[in-house]
């Protein structure tokens, strides 16, 4: 006997809506089991992990703040993936964007006025876009594989940041420690509400909503979706695959670069040898969890951020190890993907003989 996945003829709309809920419930159940076998109270654990972060203004803001770069990068990546462009290098675009954006307060620390921040954000977006255009141009001109080139540029970007922070951009008053000078208030993204999140959160929500409208209601959105699903049909309609590759990479890069600049300006206030705990890669997960829909990505980013904040909560309050928190995050992703798979496919148990017979028909 063996197990097969068979494609369903029709997908249940109800289940499509319910599947994330089922996935969260299964994660909670598994988490409870994990807490129990590691000797912790499962109810307290679940409460601390999933509920408590939502009950206090500070932790709620911290969650939103953690979700912000994931959502902004994820939205850009969704445009790439919808149009069949596999940009894996958002992490590098995030870094180079931050370098462009932060060049201003580092090289011209005395340039302090109302234009400082807007210029930083603009430069950040340009930097990210330029970095993303490298794999896009290589793809359109030389037909290289953009997955490889965009990924490898991540490491180049990381080393560039490392070089600048240790060398030319090192804080002159910093005892040789590898970090840039601390930005002035004029170059710091202001805090909003209680102070655990910066202006980056509202900016991100606005961008996501605009993208959702563009995708759903405009010709450009139609072009992106058509070229992703059927490039040949798209070319008959007069759309250019090359132009769209350049466009989607530049947009995704600009958003990642903007996220990088806002993260450094709002949260770190200085460049450090490492400025991202893997946002650019985690955002790929967020983009797919959100089903490549900007609104879905907002929700997915928030849920993933919640799992980080909740993970810290159970660690600090109950002494649960960091690994358990990571396992629970992994389980969440696993169940979401598994539930989605079961919407599209059903499981069939077959004996080998029948299966072989069917295979011969194919």
């Amino acid at each position, binding site marked *: 006997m063996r197990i097969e996945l068979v494609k369903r003829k029709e997908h249940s709309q109800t289940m499509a809506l319910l599947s994330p809920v089922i996935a969260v419930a299964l994660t909670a159940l598994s988490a409870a089991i994990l807490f129990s076998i590691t000797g912790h109270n499962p109810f307290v654990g679940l409460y601390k992990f999933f509920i408590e972060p939502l009950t206090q203004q*500070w932790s709620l803001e*911290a969650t939103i703040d953690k979700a912000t770069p994931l959502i902004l990068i994820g939205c850009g990546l969704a445009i790439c993936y919808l149009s069949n462009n596999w940009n894996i290098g958002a992490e590098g675009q995030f870094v180079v964007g931050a370098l462009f954006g932060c060049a201003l307060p580092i090289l011209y620390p005395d340039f302090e006025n109302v234009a400082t921040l807007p210029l930083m954000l603009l430069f950040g977006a340009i930097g990210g876009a330029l970095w993303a255009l490298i794999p896009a141009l290589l793809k359109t001109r030389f037909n290289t594989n953009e997955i490889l080139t965009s990924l490898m540029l991540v490491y180049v970007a990381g080393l560039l940041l*490392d070089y600048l922070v240790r060398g030319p951009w090192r804080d002159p008053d910093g005892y040789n420690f590898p970090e840039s000078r601390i930005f002035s208030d004029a170059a710091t993204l202001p805090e909003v509400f209680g102070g655990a999140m910066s202006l980056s959160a509202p900016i991100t929500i606005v961008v996501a909503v605009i993208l959702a409208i563009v995708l759903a209601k405009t010709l450009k959105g139609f072009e992106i979706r058509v070229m992703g699903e059927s490039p040949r049909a798209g070319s008959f309609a007069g759309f250019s695959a090359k132009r769209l590759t350049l466009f989607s990479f530049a947009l995704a890069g600009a958003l990642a670069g903007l996220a990088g600049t806002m993260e450094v300006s709002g949260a770190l206030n200085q460049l450090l*040898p490492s400025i991202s705990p893997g946002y650019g890669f985690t955002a790929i997960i967020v983009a797919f969890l959100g089903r490549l829909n900007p609104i879905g990505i907002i929700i997915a980013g928030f849920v993933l951020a919640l799992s980080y904040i909740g993970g*810290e909560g159970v660690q*600090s309050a109950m*002494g649960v190890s960091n690994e358990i928190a990571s396992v629970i995050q992994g389980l969440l992703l696993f169940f979401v993907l598994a539930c989605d798979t079961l919407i599209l496919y059903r499981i069939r148990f077959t004996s080998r003989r029948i299966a072989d017979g069917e295979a011969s028909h194919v």
Partner: protein
Amino acid sequence: MKSLLKTTVAAVAFAALGSAAQAADLKACFVYVGPVGDFGWTYQHDQGRLAVEEKFGDKVETAYLESVAEGPDAERAIERFAREGCNIIFTTSFGYMNPTIKVAKKFPDVKFEHATGYKTADNVATYNSKFHQGRYIIGQIAAKQSKTGTAGYIASFPIPEVVSGINAFLLGAQSVNPDFKVKVVWVNTWFDPGKEADAAKALIDQGADIITQHTDSTAPLQVAQERGVHGFGQASDMINFAKDAQYTAIIDDWAPYYIHRVQEALDGNWNSHSSWEGLAEGHVVMAPYTNLPADVVEMAKATEAKIKDGWEPFTGPITKQDGTVAAEDGVRLDDGAILGMNWYVQGIDDKLPE
């Protein structure tokens, strides 16, 4: 269903009351850069935390967060502890410096202790240890034991603490063998067993038969064990990972400091300061000398005793790599010069990354 709901409500209520139920006088919290199980830097800090628990029992409650990335996650982790009622928070990595200062401004009533940094405030103290004292001793051992006259040094980041460690190691070695060489590999990480092991292999291939490290994992010593060369444990006694390879280890013992500071916080006489102690105060401890001939052990113990009596390894004559004099014969470098050290001594086969 109803009973499940009841249990849940009870559990939620219990969770809410959780902190009130424990009536500790003080809550001490620790932020770690690596996993508790690194058997190096973070492991030793956690041993210090456990010593605090053991010493004070129910009077002091502790909590920790491990593997907290330097960056925005650090600020959130520190702020979380401040909000959760921690009275004293130890942040145990250099990269937590600015986040610690930032959070401390918001919580003037909470006491903060930052390890290895240089920024203090009314409620932020710093603490560090004179690891370079131990490095002088292992430098002497290396020069005595090495057949090739070359040691490999796996270094993390070119910050003063690491640079002064390399210098102290070579000064110790030169006191035994003036021609001793040290090769340096910068791995740009505090904890990455794979990278550290690769660096160790590369250094051994280049002729180093002594491996020493300023990174936190046991990997370099394990490579030394496999390849039949020798080395020194870092931060923690790593003898269990390299029975034949480890000569000794420079152990960071944070327990006396943590117990002392928690006691002061309990007594209400905690003040901000910059602590920088070494072998004499027991903040740096040499692990048992093993796999060594008796005369080398004797030499190491004699140097250890000399340092405990107040002798400073950074006492002239010291010549910088560029040939200029750092300290005349018999002159001792002042603390500021050691804590801000950004130059190599003569004889190091490497250029300091700029």
